[in-house]
């Protein structure tokens, strides 16, 4: 969908919010044209829909009508004066005139006033050619400013350049309030306001602070909303306006925002969230909108490299050399250690098509099922728990569902940081009156945000999720407020009876669990009643649910709760995992599991294998392969020797870093495919340079099962897109795979995966994006799962016995460490650390309650050592009341922070998802970095010098030529 750049069409005001807008239309005449629009539509939008453009400045269809610029005045028969088209709703038989001499002169005179306080520097202005003010001045025919320019003005107002991505130039501001309204209505941060009144009125960030010092989260909604050059991206100021654009999908979190990559040649000048993007509706966050600079960062590696061992300098080679070197090593290992001695890890950052190829190459080429993906360490319990209870391993709703939710229970998720665009949508619904229950050990932002306040913050102790979720169910069952008819109609009643006997036991009562969870019984009872009685109650959860020794149990408990209250199978309700990475859903769907073929079909089932064997012309190993932690153990054990790792930084992201390092050091052949020399690549023998999302075609699947196209905006920096690289390796291994374009891979996916049967690139282009399942039964895709019946038939209540984790506070390690993410950085940070996002988060800090700190003589900003039974590391401490006493918290965005040196190899009983969220630790004041950090620093220095020597090799090679 390459297109010449043009601004998105703007109908001026949003769709009608009238209750009966769906089914009631109103007929009116605009400039002699009879038109019918939904009741409650503005005159401006009605005109725009009829192809009549009314000039405007303060109106835009992403914001509620405001009526301040007064440019859109029209005449309406029977009405006095000149109503503003944006704020006037249509009425039956209205007769509107949008053009007359009188209106023209009024508009021109109003524009004259606007321009009387605006610099006339259009030719040198950054938004020249893409400025609504300029366009509108042209439309109304402004030819002179009779007031002159000697009067009062704001032309000398100083610029605010405190934000790294955009500049605020108040000299160009027309005080239309679009930025303020965007911050309020779209983002929900309320960081901007208009200060002073009359002619002195001006846009103010915070309390007349700079943007950087205010509450601004740099989402950029204000920049997008600005109709002038007042708020402009620094990239545009530097490079000029785009000349073409490509619609694609963001490669950060699992929200899957659609973007218009605005380009000059092969350079991205701006990422504009696409208005028609179903997941984001034109909104974005600081990462997706601004943090794309990593794509062209100098650290990008663009030549394949090899070395015999990790103490050698990297040797740049051709793609063919790299492939044959890798293939030879892998085959050699297999010859010596058996076919199961090698495996691969697919990437949740890569496209569905690329993941498909990786698992295909491993199954068809390696001849085993040693394929896993990073979902192992995040949402594998979601797949397991939801498949067991509901029958499908994915979230049940579309994001839009939340617009119909009356009560949101948010458990172990922090959407305003980790899924910001969905977080904004959630906040909007909360401002409309939906209630919120937050279940989290930490006081996340949503507990008490501007115009948002949680009805309950159930501040449980880390590791007690199952006790909590059981207590919720116990209250609902014992107080007889369950939805019995739903259970009778939709669920397996035998299983329900068994579960009922289990849950009714008083050991699950909140009075009993209070000692375990720390949640006061009365609070929990009230929350349970609220959940059961609010109409549409929906559960949204994140890694705070899954990354536990009982992650799968909690997921099943969540499904139980939804079924128990009949909150599943329609809009506004459901079980909603907020998945972490851009394509973690897709990487799971595409069969990146050692026990499951694509579409979650068991590899031990011969009929499942037969489908693929027939199509691929190979026979498949019936034995499930190794999971990532098994691979590590096997490597240390000596039975696993070769690993192909695509786009995942296991050395930083997986728990118990020292164990991972030992495993990596044991490998004879580590092939890393990534855009940077990440932490894992420092242990690699073969480095295959990856391509960023802007450099290739494919699809991503977001947290709502929405498959969206990723479209190539620039050629791959290293010459090959990731799918081509995997193909090259497969070819060198002698695997028979050939595709000329990712669309051909999608055709194969559709051919072999029933839930994807209706997918093709043509269909995706046609519909924009599609939520799977999409097949004959659901040609338009499926927004809500389990509508009339569960995918598994009857919903299954699973017995969810609480078993405390072995990782508990004791005398040696009296505090519980839990980890999480922050808005500005993304996961291991390899992308965001190479952008100006570092301004907000230059290091990971340990958050600690002041009372815990006081007991240990620790002050804000001190260096503290964090030690667990797995290891220890050192961070600066930040004292905050956002964590409860007894709990400490940190992020893991910087490799040298060593958060995962501390986390243990405890994991979920069903899926081996690591227990990142609970580690017993002790904290003490220290003066220097930990031993591991010091060792890691010198290792990094060495690896960097081995990389630098590569450049010398290139230089000497070219010298020889």
């Amino acid at each position, binding site marked *: 969908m390459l297109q010449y750049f043009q601004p998105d069409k703007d109908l001026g005001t949003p769709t009608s919010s009238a209750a009966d807008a769906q089914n009631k239309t109103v007929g009116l005449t605009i400039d002699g044209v009879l038109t019918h629009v939904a009741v409650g539509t503005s005159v401006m939008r009605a005109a725009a829909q009829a192809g009549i453009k009314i000039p405007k400045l303060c109106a835009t269809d992403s914001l509620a009508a405001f009526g301040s610029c*007064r440019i859109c*005045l029209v005449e309406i028969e029977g009405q006095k004066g000149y109503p503003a088209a944006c704020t006037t709703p249509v009425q039956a038989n209205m007769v509107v005139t949008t053009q007359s001499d009188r209106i023209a002169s009024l508009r021109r005179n*109003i524009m004259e006033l606007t321009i009387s306080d605006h610099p006339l520097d259009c030719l040198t202005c950054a938004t020249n050619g893409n400025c609504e003010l300029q366009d509108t001045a042209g439309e109304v025919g402004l030819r002179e400013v009779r007031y002159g320019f000697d009067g009062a003005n704001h032309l000398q107002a100083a610029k605010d350049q405190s934000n790294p991505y955009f500049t605020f130039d108040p000299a160009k501001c027309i005080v239309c309030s679009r930025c303020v309204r965007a911050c309020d209505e779209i983002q929900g941060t309320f960081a901007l306001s208009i200060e002073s009144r*009359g002619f002195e009125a001006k846009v103010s960030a915070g309390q007349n602070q700079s943007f950087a010092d205010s509450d601004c989260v740099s989402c950029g909604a204000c920049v997008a909303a600005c109709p002038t050059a007042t708020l402009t991206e620094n990239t545009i100021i530097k490079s000029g306006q785009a000349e073409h654009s490509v619609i694609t999908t963001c490669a950060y979190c699992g929200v899957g925002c659609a973007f218009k990559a605005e380009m000059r040649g092969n350079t991205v000048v701006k990422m504009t969230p696409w208005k028609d993007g179903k997941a984001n509706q034109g909104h974005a966050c600081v990462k997706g909108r601004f943090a794309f600079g990593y794509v062209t960062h100098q650290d990008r590696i663009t030549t394949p490299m090899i070395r015999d061992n990790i103490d050698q300098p990297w040797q740049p080679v051709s793609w063919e050399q790299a492939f044959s070197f890798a293939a030879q090593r892998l085959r050699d290992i297999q010859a010596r250690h058996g076919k199961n001695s090698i495996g691969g890890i697919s990437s949740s950052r890569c496209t569905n098509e690329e993941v498909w190829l990786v698992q295909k190459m491993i199954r068809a080429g390696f001849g085993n099922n040693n394929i896993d993906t990073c979902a192992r360490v995040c949402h594998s319990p979601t797949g397991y728990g939801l498949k067991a209870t509901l029958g499908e391993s994915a979230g049940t709703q579309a994001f839009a569902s939340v617009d119909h939710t009356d009560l949101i229970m948010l458990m172990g998720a922090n959407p305003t940081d980790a899924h910001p665009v969905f977080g904004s949508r959630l906040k909007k619904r909360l401002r409309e009156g939906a209630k919120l229950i937050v279940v989290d050990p930490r006081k996340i932002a949503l507990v008490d945000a501007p115009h948002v306040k949680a009805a309950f913050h159930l501040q449980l102790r880390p590791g007690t999720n199952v006790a909590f979720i059981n207590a919720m169910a116990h209250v609902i069952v014992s107080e007889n407020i369950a939805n019995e008819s739903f259970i009778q109609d939709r669920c397996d009643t035998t299983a329900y009876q068994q579960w009922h006997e289990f849950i009714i036991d008083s050991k699950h009562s909140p009075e009993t669990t209070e000692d375990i969870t720390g949640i006061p019984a009365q609070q929990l009872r009230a929350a349970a009643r609220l959940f059961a009685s609010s109409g549409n109650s929906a559960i949204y959860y994140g890694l705070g649910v899954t990354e536990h020794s009982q992650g799968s149990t909690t997921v099943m408990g969540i499904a139980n709760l939804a079924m128990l209250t009949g909150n599943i199978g329609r809009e506004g309700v459901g079980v909603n995992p907020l998945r972490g990475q851009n394509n973690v859903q897709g990487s799971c769907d595409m069969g990146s599991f050692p026990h499951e073929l694509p579409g979650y079909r068991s590899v031990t089932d011969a009929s499942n294998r037969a489908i693929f064997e027939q199509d691929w012309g190979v026979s498949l190993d019936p034995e499930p392969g190794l999971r990532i932690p098994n691979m590590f153990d096997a490597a240390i054990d000596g039975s696993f020797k070769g690993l192909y790792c695509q786009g995942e930084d296991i050395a930083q992201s997986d728990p118990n870093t020292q164990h991972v390092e030992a495993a990596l050091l044991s490998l004879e052949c580590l092939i890393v495919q990534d855009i940077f020399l990440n932490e894992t690549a420092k242990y690699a023998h073969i480095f295959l340079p990856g391509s960023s999302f802007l450099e290739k075609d494919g699809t991503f699947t977001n947290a709502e099962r929405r498959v969206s196209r990723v479209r190539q905006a620039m050629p791959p920096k290293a010459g090959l897109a990731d799918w081509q690289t995997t193909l090259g390796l497969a070819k060198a291994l002698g695997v028979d795979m050939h595709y000329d374009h990712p669309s051909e891979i999608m055709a194969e996916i559709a051919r072999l995966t029933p839930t994807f049967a209706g997918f093709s690139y043509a269909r995706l282009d046609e519909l924009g994006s599609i939520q799977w399942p999409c097949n004959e039964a659901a040609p338009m895709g499926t927004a809500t799962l389990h509508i009339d019946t569960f995918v598994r038939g009857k919903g299954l209540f699973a017995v969810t016995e609480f078993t405390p984790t072995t990782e508990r506070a004791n005398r040696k390690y009296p505090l519980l460490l839990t980890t999480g993410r922050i808005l500005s950085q993304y996961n291991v940070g390899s992308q965001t650390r190479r952008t100006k996002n570092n301004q907000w988060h230059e290091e990971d800090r340990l958050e600690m309650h002041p009372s815990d700190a006081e007991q240990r003589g620790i002050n804000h900003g001190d260096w503290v050592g964090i030690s667990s039974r797995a290891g220890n590391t050192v961070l600066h401490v930040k004292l905050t009341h956002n964590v409860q006493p007894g709990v400490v918290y940190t992020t893991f965005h910087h490799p040298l922070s060593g958060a995962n040196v501390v986390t243990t190899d405890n994991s979920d009983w069903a899926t081996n998802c690591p227990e990142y969220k609970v580690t017993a630790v002790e904290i003490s004041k220290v003066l220097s970095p930990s031993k591991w950090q010091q060792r890691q620093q010198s290792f990094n220095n060495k690896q960097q010098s081995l990389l630098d020597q590569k450049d010398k090799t290139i230089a000497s090679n070219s010298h020889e030529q």
Partner: protein
Amino acid sequence: MLDIFVPADTTACALGADAVAAAVITEANIRKVEINLIRNGSRGLFWLEPLVEITTEQGRIGFGPVTVEHIPQLINHIFEPDITDNTALCLGLIDQIPSLKNQQRVNFARAGIIDPLSLKDYLAHGGYLGLQQALTMTAESMVDQVIASGLRGRGGAAFPTGIKWRTVLETPAEQKYIVCNADEGDSGTFADRLLMEADPFQLIEGMTIAALAVGASQGYIYLRAEYPKAHRVLQQAIDLAYSNSYLGKNIAASEHQFDLQIRLGAGAYICGEETALLESLEGKRGQVRAKPPLPAISGLFGKPTMINNVLTLATVASIFARGADWYKTFGCNRSVGTLAIQLAGNIAQGGLIELAFGANLRDILVDFGGGTATGKPIHAVQVGGPLGAYLAASEWDIKLDYETFNDANAMLGHGGIVVFDDSVDMLQQARFAMEFCALESCGKCTPCRIGSTRGIEVIDKIQQGEQPKQNLILLEELCDTMQYGSLCAMGGLTPMPVRSAIKHLKKR
């Protein structure tokens, strides 16, 4: 025991009433005279303030204007009141003063007579009869009663009150609000303040009736912070109403609940505009909202809201006490009832004059006002606040009613009249109108925000003789742009004083 009245009203106090009251008490102590000093509200005859009144068998005798210096020689007259007293300051029976006798007092019938904080006084003077009547009626019939009375909003826009009430009544909602606009910001106006200080229960009663009629359980009085005395009086009156079951649960032994609170403004004129007021009441910046939606449908916190001026709500108490038919006997054209005329500026006898609509402006200026304070001829009067038109001598034979003023490109507004003598510079007055708008504009819409500042600049150019012809044309176009382009009446009406001032200038 002698009942002595010394007003505690803001104007009276500004003229020394507190000192007078203290002196009277001191003298009483010295002379061992038993007195009962009552701090009443003002009767609105400001040129007589501080006006000291003493109850006699024949009626109340007044002395005024009394200053503390007068007390030593006056005190015997005060302590021994005599209807035939002809001392300089003795006004005789106060009811018989023509300025008072010739008024038609409905809203201000009790003003200056009763102790504002005596519920007993209020009840003794016909208070809460309206509420009693209302409690016997259905909500629909109450709204019908207000519609039948022909009452129109006294804040200035003169919108039919009953129609507003009906809209609120017919908009379903779990929560509805009554909001009293007591942000009396027009220059030269003080009727709301006078009423709140002199007869606060009347407003509380009116709001209670309004709440019953539209189904609201919560009321707010948005009071300008510049009225600290009114705030104190109102708050004490509200407390008394609560403790006597006229507010809160089970009002006057009924099933109804109505809670009432005062909210103070923060000094912005624009917050007298109803939608800006609602924004401010919600804790936001006082910025005008576009209409629709009307506040009656989506007002305070998005709920149906009955927002009325102080006088409008106070009038309701009288209408329910004495009936719509009685009320309709006052007034002319579609301007029913009485108008609280506030005479201010350069005037000999400033104060409040309540008359049925239809009085002659010249009579007000001459008979009630007694000409200018400076003794010079009256040159112009501005009627209806800072956004009202300037009227020249030739225009004074005009009936004070909404329709007549409308036809004359002027407006009655909230009933304020500011008088200027012949030293006034009308171009400066035109400039002042723009300046006022520039100072008080909320800054939301372009014509008001930028237009008012440009207006000042254009007038300055005219004054400096810079292309006066072109600039007069530009000024007229600017007035047109502001009138037809502005979001609310602030920018929309600013051209009225500008144009009328320029018109007089041109005539000269």
